[in-house]
């Protein structure tokens, strides 16, 4: 492999890794607070791309307005999802909440099939995003460069919210100890809604960039990526935002490395994430950056 091809793959890997990182954060934030795998996160991601699609094609909005609307609406949908599917079950056994999450995910998918149609749709890409730049001998589409930049900006903002604001402090408190946080006068419901909103907004940003990179929309597009985003979160240590970013990059770079190293292995690309997951769960179940917590009897 020449140095030039290596660079090409590296750029692709970083770009894919940033997408995984962005989406994994949504999983990790929700898990950190509610100890719940939000199976519907992948479908929220799918809805964001469809909202952007219809804003551009049906309502003829400029791309930036469409993207903004998609992010806001998706955040609202995320909050709605939590209200409808998770809040009523907050004190139920874990297995019920998980079934509810799976049910919500399938309900959204099936509704999407009914309303958006099962046929793939081509995402309209504004000309700005389809340019190709050459840096030295490496030619890269502009989207590939934009993705990591947007990811970094989103992460800086998120980091500020979580670590410097009062809401962020409350979020950290809830994830540390749910009951104690309640006793300290934190409005748990607000914080959970806010978490779902933020996570879904990040999913929308990721979804739009995903659609710019792979411009084909189908109602089931969130299923497989959704599982991978979750795996990225587990690899890094679920409940830990930095871990989610690390896991996302490991997964993204690893996948590209597999495809790049030998074409014979490229069919196993989807299995790679799951194999990595199992290895991590066996070697270090808390993930790379996760903290051990003793089980209380």
């Amino acid at each position, binding site marked *: 492999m020449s140095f030039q091809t290596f660079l090409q793959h590296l750029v692709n890997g970083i770009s894919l890794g940033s997408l995984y990182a962005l989406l994994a954060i949504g999983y990790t934030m929700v*898990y950190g607070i509610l*100890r*719940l*795998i939000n199976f519907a996160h992948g479908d929220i991601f799918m809805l964001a791309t469809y909202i952007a699609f219809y804003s551009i094609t049906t309502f003829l909005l400029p791309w930036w307005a469409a993207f903004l609307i998609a992010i806001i609406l998706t955040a609202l949908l995320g909050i709605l999802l939590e209200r409808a*599917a998770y809040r*009523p*079950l907050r004190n*139920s056994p*874990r*297995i*019920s909440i*998980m*079934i*509810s999450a*799976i*049910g*919500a995910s*399938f*309900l959204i*998918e*099936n*509704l999407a*099939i*009914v309303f958006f149609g*099962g046929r793939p749709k081509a995402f309209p890409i504004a000309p700005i995003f389809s340019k190709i730049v050459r840096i030295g001998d490496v030619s890269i589409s502009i989207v590939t460069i934009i993705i990591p930049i947007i990811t970094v900006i989103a992460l800086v903002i998120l980091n500020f919210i979580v670590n410097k604001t009062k809401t962020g402090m409350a979020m950290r408190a809830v994830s540390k100890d749910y009951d104690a946080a309640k006793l300290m006068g934190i409005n748990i419901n607000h914080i959970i809604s806010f978490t779902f909103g933020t996570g879904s907004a990040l999913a929308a940003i990721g979804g739009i960039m995903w659609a710019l990179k792979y411009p084909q929309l189908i109602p089931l597009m969130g*299923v497989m990526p959704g*599982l991978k985003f*979750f*795996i990225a979160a*587990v690899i890094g240590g679920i409940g830990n935002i930095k871990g989610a970013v690390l896991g996302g990059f490991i997964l993204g770079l690893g996948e590209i490395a597999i495809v790049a190293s030998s074409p014979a292995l490229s*069919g*196993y690309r*989807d*299995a790679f*994430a*799951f*194999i990595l*997951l*199992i290895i991590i*769960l*066996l070697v270090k*179940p808390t993930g790379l950056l996760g903290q051990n917590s003793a089980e209380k*009897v």
Partner: protein
Amino acid sequence: MKREKVIQSLISIAAVIILLVILNKVLTPFQARIFNLGGIYIILAISMNLINGFVGLFSLGHAGFMAVGAYTSALLTMSREAKEMNFFLEPIVPWLLDVQLPFPIAIIIGGLMAALAAALIGAPVLRLNDDYLAIATLGFSEIIRVIFTNTQSLTNGALGLKGLPYIGVTDSPKEAIWWIWGLVIITIVFMVLLINSTYGRAFKAIREDEIAAEAMGINLFKHKMMAFIIGSFFAGIGGALLGHYMNTIDPLLFRYLLTFNIILIVVLGGIGSITSSVISAIVVTIAQELLRVLDGKMQIGSLIINGVPGTRMVVFSALLMLVILFYQRGLMGTNEFSWSWFKKLPFKTKKAKIS
């Protein structure tokens, strides 16, 4: 008391057999097909209920074990000509080309292969709990699917296998009902015996409180492993039957969606009850056929509604959500059907006192 129960069970089984004879005569081929599919779903639902309902392990790997069973049984029963016709991209591995076993042996081997896969997967994965277990089993079933998609010379890859032999040793379609429902009866009897044995009590103890169960001296890992392997064995058999029932299998059939269908049946019926799985499997299978009208054109009076494909599944997912949100017990909760219900009826008051 004990003898009475055995007699009652035998009477129930005899009643079911008589019912089957009648149904086999009365039902049209299409209705018989739906009825048989219901039977296959009963086996699958019970096997999932053992793992998820009785031991409380939230496993999402069912589709993977079904795939193992279905492919094993398909490759073992197909004739040499059928295999050569299927494998036109790449020839089949030579040691499988001439293998052709009778149907009953093939499905049992299918089940055993699924159990073997479960044993290999279970050893590392069952040490995890709750969510991690769900994701890891789901991951394994996806890995199995990806492997089957890529092993062209063994499973014919994404093209799948076509022209699987019909269920049964002859070509008569009337025979399928006996094989499928015979296996349903065997599965139910086996599960009831298992659940009421000491192992079954240990399973329920693990479900209720793992730590307390361990403190009582129950070997957690051994029992979890056992339930997982037995459940997967029946999942493999169910998958093999499904393959022969559909005559065609390909890796896309064994997606996560298939596992979801079975979860739907188990949850609607009530997690942790065999009776409810049986009723729910039949009801859901028939309802899925009846609700097909939603996907097509409907005429109510002079009003014509154009159905949208997929509406059917919306109804089922919404139903699942409603049940889990408002009526978590499902149809029957953890109750089971038993003859003592009938004893409570007025005309049998005498017997009720004895028991």
